[in-house]
């Protein structure tokens, strides 16, 4: 009995000691870990600005539990200085490995150097960092925007062939309009690049015509307004709409309905992200496909961390699997969606 109380006390103290960084994950490992040394990972998350981010956090916490890794979780509440503080405290605690989602790209050199000097490997998760020396981190885990763009085109090409759609203007080419993300954002640039690349390399490249491309700034409002204008300019010609994110597609759907056309039927609609609203639209038959931008990066992170600590070599860039969800699986998938 005394032993159990002592153990509980020790566990409680650990929670208190580490809890100052913010939310503390329930670490189940300390009691059950019998074989081998347990890994401790310090993880600094940006905060909880969206459903997507919340899913990202949940995934990492769950994966740590499953992998038997002791996770020291710290919430930076959207501030870089909090992240730097958290990483310093991880170093002071002597964790085995550090992972973090960088809130901004720059300003990490000093603190990562400290980690390197302390011989603690660092994994960058989800976003990019710009550092003078690439050896400051061991691996980067994230989503591949170029591949998402690739997948969009691949799906369109297959779908058009499968459904035996004919161009609405009676010509020989399908006309595509694109709603781009915020001008200059890396995600928008890479998604567009991936889409165009896949189109150029495809054997069916001649079947598609990029009619117009304009920024909708990743918002519903602008997506709707720009689509309204596209419809006025090229109304009867548009066959396919590709939106860089789901929200713009959702705005565009309303504009298409207002123009008296049937979204999802007259105009084939595909976008990227995989938020719940888009699944709802697909169930209603108003959209055709969404390419996932996967926040569930936890399992891959834990796997990579274990490999690094076991001395195995890992790729510098590791990407999570990302699904493509067409409308026919939407109803089945929606209840399972975590974000």
């Amino acid at each position, binding site marked *: 009995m005394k032993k159990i109380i002592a153990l509980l006390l020790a566990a409680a103290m650990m929670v208190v000691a580490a809890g100052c960084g913010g939310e503390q994950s329930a670490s189940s490992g300390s009691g059950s870990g019998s074989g081998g040394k347990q890994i401790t990972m310090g993880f600094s998350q940006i905060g909880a600005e969206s459903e997507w981010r919340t899913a990202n956090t949940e995934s990492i916490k769950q994966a740590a539990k499953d992998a038997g890794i002791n996770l020291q979780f710290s919430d930076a509440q959207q501030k870089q200085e909090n992240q730097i503080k958290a990483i310093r405290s991880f170093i002071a605690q002597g964790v085995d490995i550090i992972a973090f989602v960088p809130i901004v790209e720059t300003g990490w050199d000093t603190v990562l150097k400290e980690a390197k000097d302390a011989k603690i490997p660092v994994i960058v998760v989800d976003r990019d960092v710009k550092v003078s020396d690439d050896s400051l981190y061991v691996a980067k885990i994230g989503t591949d925007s170029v591949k998402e763009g690739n997948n969009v085109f691949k799906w369109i090409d297959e779908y058009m062939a499968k459904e035996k759609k004919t161009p609405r203007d009676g010509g020989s080419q399908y006309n595509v309009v694109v709603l781009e993300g915020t001008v200059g954002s890396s995600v928008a640039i890479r998604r567009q690049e991936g889409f165009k690349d896949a189109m150029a390399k495809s054997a069916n490249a001649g079947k598609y015509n990029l009619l117009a491309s304009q920024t909708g700034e990743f*918002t519903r409002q602008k997506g709707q307004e720009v689509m309204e204008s596209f419809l006025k300019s090229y109304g009867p010609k548009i066959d396919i709409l590709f939106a860089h994110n789901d929200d713009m597609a959702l705005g565009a759907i309303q504009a298409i309905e207002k123009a008296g056309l049937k979204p999802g039927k007259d105009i084939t609609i595909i976008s990227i992200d995989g938020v719940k609203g888009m699944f709802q639209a697909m169930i209603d038959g108003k959209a055709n496909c969404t390419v996932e931008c996967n926040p569930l990066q936890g399992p891959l992170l834990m796997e990579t961390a274990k490999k690094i600590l076991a001395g195995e070599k890992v790729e510098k860039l590791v990407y999570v699997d990302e699904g493509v969800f067409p409308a026919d699986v939407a109803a089945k998938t929606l209840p399972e969606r975590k974000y």
Partner: protein
Amino acid sequence: MDMLKKFAGSSLFLPVVALLVLLVFNTIFVDGFLSIQLTEDGRLYGRLVDILNRSCSLIILALGMTFVIATSGIDISVGAVVAISAAVVCTMIGGRGDGVAQMPMALAVLAAIGVGVLCGMWNGLLVAKFKIQAVVATLILMTAGRGVAQLMTEGQIITVYYKPFEYIAGFLPGMPLPTNIFIALAMVLLVAVLMKKTSIGLFVQSVGINATAARYAGINVTLVIFLVYAFSGLCAGVSGLIESSLIRAADANNAGLNMEMDAILAVALGGTLLSGGKFYIGGSVIGAITIQTLTTTMYALGVSADQLPVVKAIAVVIICLIQSKKAQEMFDAWKARRMSKQNGKKTSVDGKVAEQA
């Protein structure tokens, strides 16, 4: 001819000319710009309808902003208040997928407008009672307001599936034009009637020209200033309703983003001086429509995304120059010089002179 001359001298002349220049440009360069079709269910469909539909919320914001600016104040919080109002109405109706409203829509609409008025009263209190500079006082709500909206929506975009909600900025069954155009029209008419039948306009103007003199003349300056900010808040509340109804959702991050700047620009384009005093409601309305026409033009011409802001900026500069008195004097002087030069030479350039004229 007399009427034309009278119009040329009126305050509305230059804003209208600027808008007409844009419209003529569009008619020439954009295919089917003026075409309006009647759809099967009796709705009007065309770019002109789009422009009016999208400029409504800006017209309403500019309406409130005109009075604020006339008292030589400024309200840069309206964009954030739009976001708050949108958040209120959408969270109250709720985002249930089956299209059922959590609370009656009328209540939600009243609450959204009420919150707008409250925000405006807060600004008015700071400016009128505590004499904080208008920019600083409204800056508080500008930065904090979006946070409040975020808090209400819990950082999510709330989509409303309740059908009647889309009627605010959409078409009521059987109506040829979207409802928000009627809302904007009603508000403009209301203000116009108030200006004509009461002396509110005179009060506002005199406060703007010289607050001390106005006070000696027996005007309750504090109350007038308080009321103009409250009215601006009301306008922002209504605007928020329209903005959220347009996309049937509350997007706390983006609803009304940068709209305060567009509203100020609309007032300025309308001929009201930012230093206060004389103000032109009609001008502000035309200014708001001009701004939206410009945006629509850019999309219609297919200006590429990365060049859009530059082209827009150049267009705004040209519009401002058309309206500038000084620029006009310079142009007139240049024309007169040219004419006299050509007359002096007495060569065979008559054709060219005629062309110039």
